[in-house]
């Protein structure tokens, strides 16, 4: 606490607010990671930590170091940009991989791919009576394996 004692009170309050905000949001995201039931719900929870959790803590660190070293200290922006750019890419990849695995396993937990669904609709309307073909076939195609 030697370098941090030189901060003025208003900056200290601001830094403390950002620290508490960021760490609490990260903790809430991690709690949602173990609390939510489905993987497709859980994939949303840690983004609390990667959006405002990271931004608030990096902002607190940036303000502190800029005051202590008496110059504009922008090293945190590199970490912030890296995290904010890479997290959507990572989670989109992961969600796509999970969807691929769930579809390959079957079981009707996830809806089938668009190509498999349209082919299932055509086969259903061709071999059944015309009255069933006019019904929306989303319920019937849930069980089709892709």
């Amino acid at each position: 606490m030697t370098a941090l004692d030189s901060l003025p009170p208003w900056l200290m309050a601001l830094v403390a607010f950002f620290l508490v905000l960021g760490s609490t949001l990260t903790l809430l995201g991690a709690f949602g990671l173990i609390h939510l039931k489905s993987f497709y719900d859980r994939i949303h929870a840690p983004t609390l930590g990667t959006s405002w959790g990271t931004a608030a803590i990096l902002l607190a660190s940036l303000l502190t170091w800029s005051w202590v070293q008496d110059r504009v200290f922008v090293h945190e922006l590199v970490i912030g940009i890296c995290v904010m750019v890479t997290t959507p890419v990572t989670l989109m990849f992961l969600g796509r991989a999970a969807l691929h695995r769930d579809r390959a396993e079957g079981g009707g937990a996830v809806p089938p791919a668009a190509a498999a669904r349209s082919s299932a609709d055509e086969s259903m309307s061709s071999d059944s009576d015309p009255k069933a073909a006019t019904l929306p076939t989303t319920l019937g195609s849930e069980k089709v394996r892709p």
Partner: protein
Amino acid sequence: MTTVLWLALTWAQIALGLAACLAAYRIAVGPRAQDRVLGLDALYIATMLLFIVTGMRLGTPFLFEAALVIAIGGFVGTVSLAKFLLRGEVIE
């Protein structure tokens, strides 16, 4: 006013450590492989933020480099694991 900052730093360290523990729990019991990869993603974010907060408390700028390396390495690790789950190999 120093007490306020001390309390905030302590709370931030406790909360981030707890978040890392919850992510490690998800890695340990995650029912499927994608849950474990998601837990690893949350674990490296919490650890990176914990490094930054600890660097603020200790007054040393050397933990920034560690946080930067964790951020980049975590991205590469999660993407390659997701690629492995999607295709079965990392480099085709």
